[in-house]
């Protein structure tokens, strides 16, 4: 690629370009910015990255990432341990937490079943979820997967495996997030599929 760039910088650019949202061009800009702001930005970033690499781990219960294991959500005394919200990724967990409505606990799958990405049930944290649900003490599982084909396929797959009474003979409710008109959305802009979904899951006013 570059003729007169030192291998140290080249390597930095190559690694940065592997980050989501960054291509070779933006990686070059990011590398340049880091080098220009060596003391105020680059060194603190190095420390932050090294700390994160050392301390952050996956929660053994839900798959969230945290410096503590179990994570601070699983360990929080005020949260309802009997309601599990199943999400695709940690980013989705964060989105749920930003909304600050849900007071239960989570289960992070780590993706969805996907042919192109070669992701199969055994690559996801599905066995752990089944164990949690069948183990008892769970009253509801909320499936909060994305409303994509892969997300919904995964939701069906999970439902098939956790339906029915648990080991203690108790029934577990399985629900999913509503699909339909977004808050502040206008009908005119919605596609047919969304309108159909909204209509079929309408509720008494």
């Amino acid at each position, binding site marked *: 690629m570059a003729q007169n760039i030192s291998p140290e910088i080249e390597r930095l650019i190559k690694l940065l370009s*592997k980050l*989501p949202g960054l*291509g070779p061009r933006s990686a070059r800009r990011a590398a340049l910015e880091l080098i220009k702001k060596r003391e105020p930005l680059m060194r603190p970033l190095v420390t932050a990255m090294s700390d994160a690499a050392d301390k952050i781990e996956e929660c053994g219960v839900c798959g969230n990432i945290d410096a503590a294991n179990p994570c601070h959500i699983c360990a929080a005394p005020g949260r309802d341990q009997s309601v599990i919200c199943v999400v695709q990724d940690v980013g989705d967990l964060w989105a749920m937490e930003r909304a600050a409505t849900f007071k239960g606990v989570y289960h992070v799958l780590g993706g969805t079943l*996907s*042919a*192109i*990405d*070669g992701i*199969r049930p055994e690559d996801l944290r599905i066995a752990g979820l089944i164990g949690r649900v069948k183990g008892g003490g769970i009253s509801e599982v909320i499936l909060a997967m994305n409303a*994509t*084909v*892969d997300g919904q*396929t995964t939701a069906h797959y999970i439902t098939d495996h956790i339906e029915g009474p648990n080991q203690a003979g108790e029934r577990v409710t399985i629900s999913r997030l509503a699909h339909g008109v977004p808050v502040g959305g206008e009908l005119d802009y919605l596609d047919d599929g969304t309108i159909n979904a909204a209509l079929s899951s309408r509720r008494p006013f």
Partner: protein
Amino acid sequence: MAAGHYISHLRLTDFRNYAALDIDFSGAPVVLHGENGAGKTNLLEAVSLLSPGRGLRRARLEALTRQEGESRAPAWGVNASLMTQDDMIKLAIGQVPEAPRRRVIRIDDKTVSGTALSAYVTLFWLTPAQDRLFTGPASDRRKFLDRFTLMQAPDHGANVLSYEKLRAERNRLLGENISDRGWYEALEWDMARYGAKIASARTKTLYALSDEIDRRPETVFPKSRLALEGEIEDLVQSGLSEEEVSERFAQLLADNRSLDIRAGRTLRGVHRADLLVSHVPKSMSAASCSTGEQKALLIGLMLAQAHAQSDKHPFLLLDEVAAHLDSGRRAALTEELIDLGTQVFLTGTDAALFEAFDGRADMFEVRGGTIT
């Protein structure tokens, strides 16, 4: 393990007759043996999709999804881990259920265009369909040469596409008997420009390949003499510059317009070129040679091209090649492939065909969509 650039892992999901397959490779030649219809060629096809284009069967995207009885899987995927000198790169190709007609390609989880694959994977194949290459239509040989050309001149594919598009335009005018001179001239000028690039790239490839053939020692795979037959290619070979070729070609198209109108199509141009191959030791045209001899010639050509392109670490996909060769040639091919040092995938019905590898290959038995 000689190759420093090889596929170390392949995962197929709902692809052809494979529901879910994981297979690890060491970088040594890969031998896939099993009965007819077991899925050996399907595996080669999966690997062939990792280079730009539609793969070795030129199949439509929808045809690649696994079918069980009446029901079809929603999408297929081929995932490969590519080991390079200093890195491991994840290649993914397949469908997403939302857009089943679009081929999606991802390199390290980033969606890219198909041509981006050419930076990582160069490969070519030899399949039973090519057994009639020397006796079949010229278009097959042109495509064969164009595939080789693509490896040295990455924009060759785009040039051929542009030329063909313009030719179709011009043919439409000819067919509808339109006589707007300015319109023809505009099309012909562009056709000539792309045509000159195409002819020049083909000629360069032919020269490089011929040089490589001359350099190589005599083996049981007979040497071929190659010639490019085509009037635009002749202009290039007579030493004219690309610009001069382009001008002459444009003039030729203009001069032929009335003839072309009568025929309803473009009669002359780079779309008429042919690759002529002859068997050097027998001084015989390839088309007159026996089937086995033709196969040996083709293998010789492939090996020469692989050596000429060795800096790109080309993968070779050899489908049912061993069956055509006597045991002496099979042994010689084995040594040639090991010596080449790039990753090679071979198929055959019987493991015994590959005994010359003697522990130097990754051997797999393919049976009904599974591999052992």
